[in-house]
């Protein structure tokens, strides 16, 4: 933890329960039906203008804790981060007072061009310095801790020297940021690159995990017989990702968990059913922890 972080707002209003990603399609349904879900997460970029979306979120915000998930800050850009974008993020934070604010371990902007995707970084000391500098800059500007999410990746650079899990842990350690552990992304990247997903989880520092993401992905069968998994957030969380989630909870304890769905968005009920599934796992881990503490007391007595 950096000494600088002492004055930041760290108290999270996001409970260690299950939430869902809120998209425009469901604004009205959430207001009308007030579904039982612990919290909601929105894309920061969708609330940077004015008008209707902001009024909806103002109204929804009264009943639900909100988390902001950004896709555009491009923390890994060698040429620096876009300060006008950072200022837009600050204004969205000011208006909605989110419990959590997250971005990605990736880059999207070079030569004043936004490349429309979360692009992979080479895992090098240079990239680590760049990311840490930008996380420091962002946290100082926003006066709060942010979370950094591990990406899904489809390629690796030959000159990378640091495993992604070590890179992420080091960024958290150096900047005091938290980690948004996307279990689906770990699964996707592990399958694509032949990594051990369990070892990835084991390498992350449990106290730094501030949020978990769950989503579905596509399995692309390539003509050369190879399989490439693509993180498209367009389906239910598949069984192996649920299994990895259970493993993550066993390591990290109960952590705020989000169901993400961004393409072919289903009716609200489908998202809520997925969140219920996550909530069942969260409850189980809580009970087990209470049980474990009870046993420890018994031994001590």
């Amino acid at each position: 933890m950096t000494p600088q972080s002492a004055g930041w707002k760290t108290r999270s209003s996001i409970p260690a329960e299950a939430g869902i990603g809120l998209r425009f399609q469901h604004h009205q349904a959430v207001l009308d039906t007030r579904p039982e879900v612990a919290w909601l997460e929105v894309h920061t970029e969708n609330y940077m203008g004015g008008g209707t979306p902001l009024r909806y979120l103002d109204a929804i915000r009264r009943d639900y804790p909100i988390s902001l998930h950004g896709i555009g800050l491009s923390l890994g850009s060698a040429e620096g981060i876009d300060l006008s974008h950072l200022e837009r993020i600050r204004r969205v934070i000011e208006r909605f007072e989110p419990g959590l604010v997250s971005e990605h371990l990736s880059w999207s902007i070079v030569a004043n061009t936004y490349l429309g995707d979360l692009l992979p970084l080479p895992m090098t000391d240079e990239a680590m310095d760049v990311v840490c500098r930008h996380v420091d800059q962002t946290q100082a500007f926003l006066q709060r801790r942010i979370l950094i999410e591990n990406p899904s990746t489809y390629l690796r650079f030959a000159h990378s020297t640091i495993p992604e899990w070590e890179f992420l842990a080091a960024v958290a350690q150096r900047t005091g940021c938290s980690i948004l552990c996307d279990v689906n992304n770990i699964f996707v990247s592990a399958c694509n690159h032949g990594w051990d997903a369990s070892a990835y989880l084991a390498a992350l520092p449990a106290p730094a995990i501030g949020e978990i993401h769950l989503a579905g992905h596509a399995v692309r069968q390539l003509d050369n017989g190879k399989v490439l998994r693509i993180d498209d957030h367009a389906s239910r969380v598949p069984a192996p990702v649920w299994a990895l989630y259970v493993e993550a909870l066993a390591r990290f304890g109960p952590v705020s968990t989000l169901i993400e769905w961004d393409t072919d968005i289903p009716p609200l009920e489908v998202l809520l059913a997925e969140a219920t599934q996550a909530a069942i796992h969260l409850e189980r881990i809580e009970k087990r922890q209470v049980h474990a503490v009870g046993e420890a007391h018994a031994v001590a007595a």
Partner: protein
Amino acid sequence: MPSLRELQHAVRLSLVEREDSVAASYIIDDGLAPERRLSVYRNTFASNLANALRLSYPAVRRLVGDEFFEGAATIFMHERPPVSAYLDEYGAEFAEFLVHFPSAASLVYLADVARLEWAVNRALHAPDAEPLDVTRLAALEQSDHDRVSFVPHPSVSLLSADCPIDAIWRAVLAQDEMALAAIDLAAGPVWLLVQRLATGVEVARVDEGPWRFAAELFAGRPLGTTLSSAGNLDAPSLLAEHIAAGRFIAFSLDDAAAHVAAPAQENRS
């Protein structure tokens, strides 16, 4: 070994200009060619930007059909990729692009419909701003009135076209074939005012004279100049209507520096 900056420039070349060779040389094959790995990212780049353009230009898309739209969008995004991740602002130059897009030449009104859609899009996403407090205006000395310049609400814009693009736009979005067939392209020019209201974005037709008067006001010309060039128009009523409709958010006094500073100093003493 490339620097991070070199690597990122190479990836931009690959995604935007389809020049893979440099980026590919940095990537591990591992059973799948680097070029194919890069194409996964290029597909996301293309589909995200095409989606942003589809959201902003639904009527253009219906007018030309999916296939043509995707084709035009693809060329556009590679020629003019976005400069920031705030994609609600992406695509302002699409109308201008369509003017010079050879295969769009047969639909003479296409670029003008695109301009209207961009005005609507801007109105939808413009920042919130409180309308002008009229009591501040009323508190001015009579002698200062000529020096007032208004700041328009960021959602407000004016545009004109040689044919009834507003009718085309409405009919296309409503998929109203009868209305579309009834449109007379030779009916003469239209003068439009676009604004976000609480109920949604309004596209209103106004007469040419009031439109030109509004254009002067929205451009921030001082009231004295605007009124003197208003001719036979009932300028005070038009002005009152703009104010009542919340189309201004502030005003300044031309040559205002000395004027504004004086009372502030009095307050301090």
